[in-house]
């Protein structure tokens, strides 16, 4: 052990973080409290159960573009479903607005996804293969299929709105003939579009996302429903927006319930990032806005200003849910604690249960 007469000149060590929860805290003698003549390690103390506090897993190199896509993809999926329902129940304004909203959301969301790639000019490589094991691959195809249908349906709406100004020529009757089936085709891929992003996040080694893998799909489809309902309430006169209101209310109920259930069922350490820092704030406000929007819908949903305000609150709630979950996951990957502690616990639990042959560490 090296000592030096200059040891006393070292700056005081920052207080060590105690490991929260989980047994087996390590005994170590106090460090950095000596008078400078006691034995000291050459290097600053390391976090007892990690490599100098360095992360074990790497966070996904995804920027806020991807978080925005999580929201927009859900919004598009929910709107696609609303559009198909409006088609079936003969609500032309709701149908038009839902289709246009869905198209705008997938267009912006898809562009955000491409922009986030390390090599955007190669985005089409996703569409040169199909891999069931890759939620990103499955999702690319879902997104493409949805976009195709909603694109055709929305093009027809745009043509009608502009008084048949689109240069379609003889294709106009064709467009009118296929817009209905195209709307239903999009609707078939609408719920997968809203749900697959949950699998995309959960199917990673990112501790918080992975720990959510059983319940995150329910949170995401609920969030998509309330967002799409909100968009319908903002854009559509109250007479036609009844289904949007009910979808929003069901979404709020699902969102609040699923989020809470999910947090209870997750590993407690992996759930921590959902309550701290930026992610914690966003998720707290997400719930508040969802509830406020839900109450607003219930109470004033038939009065347009209240409907618009509630709809905006709901869309904001959905965006905050996505950004919050996204942020919490990235945070969990940057701190080794969230990787190591749940893994050590589950390993210890398996050993306690007598399963000792499936550890990566053997003798």
């Amino acid at each position, binding site marked *: 052990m090296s000592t030096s007469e200059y040891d006393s000149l070292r700056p005081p060590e920052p207080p060590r973080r105690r490991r929260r929860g989980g047994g087996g805290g390590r005994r170590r*003698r106090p460090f950095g409290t000596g008078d400078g003549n006691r034995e000291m390690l050459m*290097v600053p103390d390391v976090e007892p159960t*990690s*490599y*100098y506090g360095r*992360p*074990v897993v790497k*966070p996904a*190199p995804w920027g806020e573009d991807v978080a925005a896509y999580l929201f927009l993809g859900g919004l598009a999926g*929910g709107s696609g479903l*609303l559009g198909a*329902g409006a088609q*079936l129940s*003969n*609500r032309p304004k709701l149908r038009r607005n839902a289709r246009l909203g869905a198209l705008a959301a997938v267009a912006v969301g898809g562009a955000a996804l491409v922009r*986030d790639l*390390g*090599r955007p000019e*190669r985005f089409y*490589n996703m569409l*040169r*293969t199909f891999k069931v*094991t*890759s*939620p*990103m*691959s499955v999702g690319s195809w879902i997104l493409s299929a949805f976009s195709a249908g909603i694109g055709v349906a929305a093009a027809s709406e745009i043509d009608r709105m502009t008084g048949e100004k689109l240069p379609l020529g003889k294709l106009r009757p064709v467009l009118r003939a296929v817009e209905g089936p195209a709307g239903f085709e999009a609707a078939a891929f609408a*719920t997968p579009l*809203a749900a*697959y992003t949950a*699998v995309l996040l959960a*199917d*990673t*080694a990112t501790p918080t996302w*992975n720990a959510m*893998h*059983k319940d995150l799909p329910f949170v995401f*489809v609920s969030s*998509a*429903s309330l967002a799409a*309902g909100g968009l319908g309430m903002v854009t559509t006169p109250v*007479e036609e927006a*009844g*289904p949007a209101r*009910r*979808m929003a209310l*069901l*979404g709020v109920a*699902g969102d609040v319930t699923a989020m809470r259930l999910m947090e209870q069922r997750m590993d407690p350490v992996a759930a921590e990032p959902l309550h701290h820092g930026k992610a914690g704030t966003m998720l707290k406000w997400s719930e508040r806005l969802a509830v406020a929007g839900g109450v607003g819908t219930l109470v004033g949903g038939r009065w347009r200003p209240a409907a618009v305000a509630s709809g905006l609150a709901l869309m904001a709630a959905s965006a905050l849910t996505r950004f919050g979950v996204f942020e919490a996951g990235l945070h969990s990957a940057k701190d080794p604690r969230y990787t*190591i502690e749940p893994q*050590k616990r*589950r*390993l210890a639990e398996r050993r306690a249960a007598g399963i*000792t*042959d*499936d550890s*990566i*560490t*053997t*003798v």
Partner: protein
Amino acid sequence: MGQLSGPTDPTADAHWHTHEERKGFFTDTSICIGCKACEVACKEWNHNPRDGDLDLTGMSYDNTVSLGASTWRHVAFVEQDRARIEEARESGRVLVSLGMPQVRSERDVTTSVTDLSGGDLSGVDTTPPDTPEFRWLMASDVCKHCTHAGCLDVCPTGALFRTEFGTVVVQDDVCNGCGTCVAGCPFGVVERRSDGTAAPTTREGQKKGEQPPIPNKGVAQKCTLCYDRLVDGQTPACAKTCPTTSIKFGDHEDLVTEAKARVAQLHAQGMTEARLYGANELDGVGGTGSVFLLLDEPEVYGLPPDPRVCTADLMTMYKRAAMAAAGMVAAAAVAFLGRGGRGA
């Protein structure tokens, strides 16, 4: 789609017509001297650019910090005092007394361990008179080339593929840098290469050397187990250069056997802290192609203590997502059917 977890032959799962022995590393950290020759050889052979800003971390002799897009070998340094050495020995002793190894298929090596140690080391005085006062742990980390590789399974473009040697390699001309593999790796190995250090330093008066252009910007990069050398029957650069044979390269099966014998030998010498990492095909990633002999718990070296490939639960996730999607359809149906009329 091959199987997503459990013991398997990854090359056969990938439908290779030719049969090559699965290749891998056995990194025996007990004889690593921390020279970092492996890091240098790897960088040179693979033309990997500099990453980081040539800063000193101040945390140890490790200024490389971690594996990454341009660092495919990383030597970890951990200084430990006597108390920590004792703890490591104790945790190793616990491992032995758990009844491990119970690798169901390979009884042969198990018996040799039992012969040497009697299976239970609790009664053995494992504190030799030369218990060191402190020690440096040095370990050269590398891509694990998992049997069930998360990076490979989640890659949407097919850029990552399984070679005939059972290793996992990125095709840098196919990868579009989506970054899914980065999050998919339970060991934090693969990384998307940013512009590296091509950006000029912001600190004034510092010009840290001219740099060649950075290849493969924006795509995922990781150890290839020197695929280009393997196809020519050569040893990977790191193993070739390692002066102490801490890094051994060879057929995976032979290496696992060798690793088990080495652990038994160290145990017989009283070093109960010795243990293997990745040699168990029943673990969460189906065993790794790169096997390590460690002298403390894995997390001390920055390795996950119980990694589980994310795709092992993929079918559960898809099922749950399908249930959620069905719920959403039901909610929409209720929304449109509820209260009948249009003015609801």
